[in-house]
């Protein structure tokens, strides 16, 4: 069992080196390079994924800041417009109040004027009437009959609307 057989040794070498050469040519070189390529591509993918993740994180942070900025901006704008609106309201109310006061004053003046002119015309009319009546009374002898006739005549001279 332990005897040395150089022939067996030679055959083992031949077989082993044949297998070594054929196997590395046919299978091992392609397999190892495929494994290497796959590892490289996995490494690249991981690297890229990490980069993209970082990028996305940065973008997210940026967007968050932008949103916060926009919110602050909007709040400021709302506040500003509120104060503007308040001021405009006050202005409008004030103006309206002034306007209405002015209108009221004007109306009051007009009324006063009209009243004045009406009173004046009434007064002159009444004076005319009184003068006319006095004229009539003085022109006629004033007995009962005549007085009655005079009044009736006077009444007849009155405008139609006053009849009855």
């Amino acid at each position: 069992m332990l005897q040395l057989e150089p022939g067996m040794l030679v055959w083992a070498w031949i077989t082993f080196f044949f297998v070594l050469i054929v196997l590395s040519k046919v299978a091992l070189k392609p397999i190892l390079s495929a494994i290497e390529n796959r590892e490289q591509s996995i490494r690249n993918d991981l690297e890229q994924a990490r980069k993209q993740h970082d990028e996305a994180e940065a973008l997210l942070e940026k967007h968050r800041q932008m949103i916060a900025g926009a919110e602050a901006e909007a709040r400021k704008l709302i506040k500003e417009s509120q104060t503007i609106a308040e001021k405009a309201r006050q202005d409008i109310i004030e103006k309206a109040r002034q306007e209405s006061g002015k209108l009221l004053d004007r109306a009051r003046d007009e009324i006063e004027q009209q009243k004045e002119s009406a009173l004046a015309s009434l007064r002159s009319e009444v004076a005319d009437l009184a003068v006319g009546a006095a004229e009539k009374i003085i022109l006629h002898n004033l007995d009962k009959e005549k007085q009655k006739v005079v009044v009736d005549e006077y009444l007849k001279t009155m405008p139609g609307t006053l009849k009855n």
Partner: protein
Amino acid sequence: MALIEHTAAAVDSVADKGETIGGWIQHHLINGPEWHILPGVNIHLPHFPPLHFLGMRIDLSITNHVVMLWIAGLSLILLFKLSFKKNQMIPRGIGSLLEMLVIFIRDEIGIVNMGEKEGRRFTPLLVTFFFFILLSNLMGLIPLFSTPTSNINVTGALALVTLASTQYFGIREQGLIGYYKNLVPHGVPILLWPLMFVIEIMGILAKHVALTIRLFANMVAGHIVLFAFLGLIIIFKSYYVSPVSVGFGIFVYFLELLVAFIQAYIFTVLSALFIGMSVNPEH
């Protein structure tokens, strides 16, 4: 009773043919000029006249173990060829198992023991060592096949490949003088150098002889135990021993399955370690 008589008759007939249990075990282990291709069918392999070279008698006849080596090598090549399709990024089936083993050998055996660059460079050699020895070891567990690694010449040839690799690549990396100078550990007094040099050379030889004997002895021992358990049936001349024999035989069979993997792994690891040590001197 009939059973016992039967067994006795069988044993007597074996004894008549001049066979003993020891001879029967040896017959199953040693190399021969015949290939038992089917039960009872033996092929006589071609015999060549021996060559004489440097006073050695080299008999290049094809023997049983040579055929077994060829079968192992061819099935290894076919296994790799068939399970790996070209241009396929993701392997499937046996391909993924083989690829896992190849990556394991590259990363855990090659790169760990030899360093990043050398590990990648020697991966094809280590993978071939591992799978060739593994298939050779496993062949003995299939009926009608025998284990080529239970022949000391085969394991010796494999260990000599490792030895030649250590010397060749060591000299190529460090130069002839540099390599042998680095064999002696640093810090040894000048006077002790000749002694240390001889010791280191003997150490290298011993390492590779141990590599040879370890694989050979493990493979032979398993088979001897297996056949010895079965031989107990004949020795005791009784069928009643057979459950025990067969039970232990199956146990030893599974043990051998384990040993086949372990020895292939150990041989590969030690080869990687030896080559790594000679290629990277300051390890």
